[in-house]
């Protein structure tokens, strides 16, 4: 599959009902209106572990990352609404990641408690698994998707990449079309 067709494949591979999206929106708006976002699907311990993994995908060292964007709340909403069928994949994937963690670091107690180097070693060990692909997709969606879904808090993701969602833009848009007008 070339990348054009792969893109198109991805574009629809996860097709779902519009109604489910509406539910997700409604839920996200309700959650967003309360000051502290609440987890519905994920337990606190499970959320901590997943957040630790997501924070390795988009880290927070240089600037706000997945953690500050609230990616975990996006994942929680997705598993509650339009990606309900992915719950089992999360459960099994996290279980397998724990097995891998104990294998690599027998003295460790949780993913969240690993140090920086250990985190990277664990990610390298699971980066080709299907679960990692799913978590990466959800992390990116939670970082760069509309804030109504629970992530991209304060537009952290869009600010990082230089994206702005507006009803209208006026040319010139960038450096080179501006240059052309001079």
């Amino acid at each position, binding site marked *: 599959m070339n990348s054009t*067709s792969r893109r198109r494949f991805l574009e629809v591979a996860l*097709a779902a009902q519009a109604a489910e*999206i509406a539910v997700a929106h409604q839920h996200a708006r309700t959650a967003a209106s309360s000051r502290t976002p609440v987890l519905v699907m994920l337990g606190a311990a499970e959320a901590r572990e997943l957040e630790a993994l997501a924070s390795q*995908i988009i880290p927070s060292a240089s600037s706000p990352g997945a953690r500050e964007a609230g990616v975990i709340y996006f994942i929680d909403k997705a598993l509650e609404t339009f990606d309900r069928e992915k719950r089992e994949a999360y459960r099994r994937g996290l279980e397998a990641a724990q097995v891998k963690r104990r294998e690599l670091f027998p003295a460790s107690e949780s993913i969240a408690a690993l140090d920086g180097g250990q985190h990277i070693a664990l990610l390298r060990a699971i980066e080709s698994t299907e679960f990692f692909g799913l978590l990466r997709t959800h992390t990116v969606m939670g970082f760069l998707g509309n804030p109504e879904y629970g992530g991209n808090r304060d537009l952290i993701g*869009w600010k990082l*990449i230089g994206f702005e*969602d507006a009803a209208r833009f006026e040319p010139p848009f*960038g450096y080179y079309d501006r240059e052309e007008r001079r």
Partner: protein
Amino acid sequence: MSVRFRPSDTVDFVVIGSGAAGGVVAKELSSAGLRVVVLEQGPHLREKDFTHDEIKFFHRGVLVNDLKRQPNTFRKTEAEKAVRQPAVMYGRQVGGGTVHFTANFWRLHEVDFEERTRWGSVPGASLDDWPIRYAELEPYYTKVEQEFGVSGLAGASPFDPPRSQPYPLPPLPVKSGGVLFERAARKLGLHPYPAPMAILSKPYRGRGACTQCGYCKHFGCEVRAKSSSLASVIPMAERTGRCEIRAESYVRKIEVNAQGRVTGAVYFDSRGKEVFQKARAVVVCANGAETPRLLLLSKSSRFPNGLANSNGVAGKYFLADTGIEAHGLFEHPLNDYKGVHVSRLIHDYYDSDAKRGFFGGGGIDARFDWYPINFALDGLPKDVPRWGEGFKSALARYFTRSMTLLAHTSCLSVESNSISLDPELKDSWGLPALRLTFKNHPDDLNVQRFLRDRMVEILEAAGAQKIWADDAEDLVYTGHLMGSCRMGNDPRTSVVNGNHRAHDVPNLFLVDGSSFVTSGRQQPTCTIAALAYRAAEFMVQASRKGEV
């Protein structure tokens, strides 16, 4: 405002599908005084439904066929058993694919209608001439541009076919990617020009001008600046008072009588109830995948191989959306996510050239049709880390500084490339799933490799800091569904004649991408709509003479 017919009313025409073809046919027939019911499987959405939400419209794909309820199967050759996977994509709402398309709006060239005559045969392919020529279609291309609203610059490309009228609207603003592309192409002696787009650069016929918001491909336009059939011809059809647009009506069979004439269509309504709409004639505009599927679903004692399929051609010679991309990273921000996706184009490599040693050609456009999530998931070069600080810093650097070149390329007609019914898998309505059998002709890939190298040259000449490109590979999933009920003068090798009337059934017409004999260089929508204007004119005349 719009009229309602009862299923027991025998209307003049039932039109199945409401996209570039169905919308035009409905408008033309109803404007001529005929009574029309349009059956559309998807919903009737309005501007308020079209929001900026990448997760909903892009990743959940709510404007295209739902592969959970309407699964596909795919195989490369007839010897294989097909497996369940996404194979075809089409717009699924009133307006069809014109609602969510990028809005590239090219006319075919004169050569496209007679490539067999000009080039000769191609081993392993069924390259044929069309039964019509460009000159016959030109007035209808003009009508499409005027009624839909197209922005462009006539005469800007030396390769453009002759035209009787300029574009009704001036070109949309050039973007940074377009500027870089234009400079580089000129340096290389090529002929870049403003891409013709079915998007309004200025207010037109009661619709607003484009606001440059950047949400085109996979999105509906909230200001009606994108010239979909939903925004243009569908409201005109409804205003005649003789056309009912019946959404959420999924047709499962076209019925025939003992004389072999069609009598109407059976569809599932929104609650899954079967309804039979009676009609004097039926026009199928359901797209290049669903039109042949519906014929094959419409088996009867009179047509045991499927309706209008006595020669077994329905579904064969399927043509797909072939193309290849190359990408460049530049020093300064382009911000090409703003504005319509495409602003500049070349057709220098459109025609086949014997010196290249293979059939085919393509057009190359400069575009940015990425959104934040899909760029992060699939837009970065392969040597960028997939996670960690390296991934994050690449996102920050690449998103605003990248552009894509896309070569839209020829797809050769091959008899075994086909749409058929899967013998096992069913959709949610219990109908056999759509099965695609497809393997590219080697020249499809040869032309992609050739144009990939040309795109890399252009990006180099544009001063890209980094360039990355696709490999040419066999296609497994496609939009731009064409060729599967092709038109022709010979009833043994085609499904409809030059006027889109089925060879087997006098009151059945098929008009959409399925009518195409060759693929052109993709961007079929403008031609689909032009064919529909021409076919509808024939239907009106035949109707008045009592010959339908």
